[in-house]
C-alpha cells in the first residue's frame, strides 16, 4: 500500500513540470475546455443532434486526456533514465505499475468537473438533480477506464517509443468512435463493432441517459461494462510491461523495452 501511494504521488508530481501552476492549467484546463467547446459548436452547427448530445459526449470525452499523463508516467521512466532502477528494484510490480494511474483518476475527474461546469454555465446544459449522482459515476468510470488505456499505451510505448503520438492516436480514435460526437448508428457496421471495444462508449451513453432523466439503475450495466473494459486494458498493459521486463532481463539490455 505504501509503495502504491509513493508511486502514485511521485510519478504524478514529476510529470509535465507540474510544480508550476501555468503548465498544469494549460494541459489540464484550457486544452480540454477548448476541445469541448470546439466539438460542441461544430455539433451545434451541424444540427443533427441536440446540443446536449455533444456537450455530454465531449465532457466525458475530456477523460481521454488522462491517457496522456498515465502513459507518460509509465513510459517516461526510460527517458528520465530511471527505468534501470525500476527494473532492478525488488519492489512488487503490481503497486508500482498501477500506482502510476492513481492520482490521474482524481485529476481526470477534476478535468471533467470543469468541462461539465462549462457545459452547464456557458452552454446551458441542464442536468436533472436526480441524474447528478449518475453523471458523476459515469465520469469516474470513464476516467478509470481511460487510465487502463493509458497503462497499456505506456507499456506499448517502450516498444513504439513515442508516448505522445500513441496517446494522441488513442484520443482521436476514442473521440470518433465512442459516440461522443458521432452517433454509433451512423458509423459503418465494422467500425460500430470496434466502437464496442472502446472504453468510453458506454460511459458516454450512460451519462446521456442520466442527463435525459434516466434512473440510476438503467445505466449501471453500461458503467459496469466500461469498468470491466478499462480493467482489461490495464491488465493487458501490466502483462505487456512484465513481458518486456522479462525480455530485458533475458537479453541484458533495456533498448526495445
Amino acid at each position, binding site marked *: 500500500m505504501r509503495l502504491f501511494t509513493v508511486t502514485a504521488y511521485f510519478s504524478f508530481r514529476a510529470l509535465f513540470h507540474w510544480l508550476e501552476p501555468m503548465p498544469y492549467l*494549460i494541459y489540464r484546463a484550457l486544452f480540454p475546455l*477548448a476541445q469541448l467547446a470546439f466539438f460542441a459548436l461544430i455539433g451545434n452547427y451541424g444540427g443533427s443532434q441536440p446540443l446536449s448530445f455533444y456537450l455530454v459526449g465531449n465532457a466525458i470525452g475530456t477523460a481521454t486526456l488522462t491517457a496522456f499523463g498515465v502513459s507518460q508516467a509509465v513510459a517516461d521512466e526510460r527517458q528520465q533514465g530511471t527505468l534501470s532502477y525500476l527494473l532492478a528494484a525488488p519492489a512488487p510490480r503490481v503497486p508500482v505499475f498501477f500506482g502510476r494511474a492513481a492520482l490521474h483518476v482524481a485529476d481526470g475527474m477534476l478535468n471533467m468537473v470543469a468541462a461539465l461546469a462549462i457545459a452547464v454555465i456557458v452552454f446551458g446544459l441542464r442536468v436533472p438533480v436526480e441524474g447528478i449522482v449518475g453523471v458523476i459515476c459515469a465520469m469516474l468510470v470513464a476516467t478509470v477506464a481511460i487510465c487502463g488505456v493509458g497503462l497499456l499505451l505506456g507499456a506499448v510505448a517502450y516498444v513504439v517509443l513515442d508516448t505522445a503520438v500513441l496517446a494522441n492516436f488513442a484520443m482521436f480514435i476514442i473521440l470518433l468512435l465512442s459516440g461522443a460526437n*458521432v452517433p454509433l448508428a451512423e458509423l459503418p457496421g465494422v467500425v460500430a463493432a470496434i466502437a464496442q471495444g472502446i472504453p468510453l462508449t458506454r460511459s458516454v451513453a450512460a451519462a446521456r441517459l442520466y442527463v435525459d432523466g434516466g434512473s440510476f439503475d438503467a445505466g449501471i450495466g453500461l458503467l459496469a461494462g466500461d469498468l470491466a473494459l478499462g480493467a482489461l486494458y490495464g491488465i493487458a498493459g501490466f502483462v505487456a510491461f512484465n513481458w518486456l521486463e522479462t525480455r530485458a532481463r533475458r537479453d541484458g539490455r533495456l533498448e526495445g523495452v
Partner: protein
Amino acid sequence: MTAALRLAAYSAWVNFQEVAVNGFLLFAAVWQPFFIGVTTMYMLRHRADFDPMYVIVGTALSGIWSTLLFAGSGAISHERWMGTLELLAASPASFFVVIGGKLAGTTIFSLLSLVLAYGIGALLFGYPIAIAEPGWFALSLLLAVVALWATGMFFAPLAILWRAVGRFLLGLEYPIFALSGFLFPVLLLPVWVLPISNVLPPYWAAVAMHGAASGDLDLTDLLRAWFFLLVTGGALLLIARWLFEQVLTRARRAGTLALS
C-alpha cells in the same frame, strides 16, 4: 537578397527532411486532420446546405495551424535542445532568415493536410468535390500559408524569451480552431470574441479560403480578406523581426542563450 534566399532555401530543405520523419509533426499534419476531418464530416453532413469543401478547407487549415503552432513555438527551442543554437546565433548568416527558412520547410510540409482533407471528402466519403473559384482559391491558399508562416515566426522567439508564454502557446490549438471559424462560423461565438478573431491571420485565412472554395464571397469581399491577411500576417512578421533581435541582444548581454 539572393544569398538570403539561398540560405532560406537550404534551411527549408534541411528542415523539411527533418519534419517529414518527426512522429509528432506527422501526427499534427496528417493523422490529426484525418480524425478531425472524418469526425466533422459526420457531424456536418446532415445540414441542408452541406458543402464537403467546407470541411475539407477547415480540416486542412486545422492541420496547417497545428503543425505551424507546434513547429513555430519550438523552432528556436529545438535548436537549443539539439545544441546548435549557439552555432546559429554566432554565425554571420541571419538568424531570422535561417529560422524563417526552417519554418517555410515546415509550412510546405503542412500542406499535406490539404491533400489528405481532399482525400477524406473525395475518396473516403465519395463526395464530388468542386472549387467554385479555383484561381481565387489558389491565391487565397498562398496568402493564407504566408500569413500562417508569419504567425509561426512570431511564436518562435516568444517561446524562448518567456518560457511560460511558450507553454501557453501550446494550448492555443483548439482556441484558434474555434476563434478562426475553421469548421463552424464565428458568429456562433459570443459577440465579444469577434474582435479577437478579426486580428488573427488564421481567421482571415479561413474567410478567404472558405469564400473562394464555395464562391460565397465576391471579389470585393475576397480582396478585403486578402488585405487583412497581409496586414495581420505582416504585422506579426514585423513584431517577430523585433523579437528575434531581442533574443540576440539579450543573449549577448547575458552571455547565454538560456534566456528563460
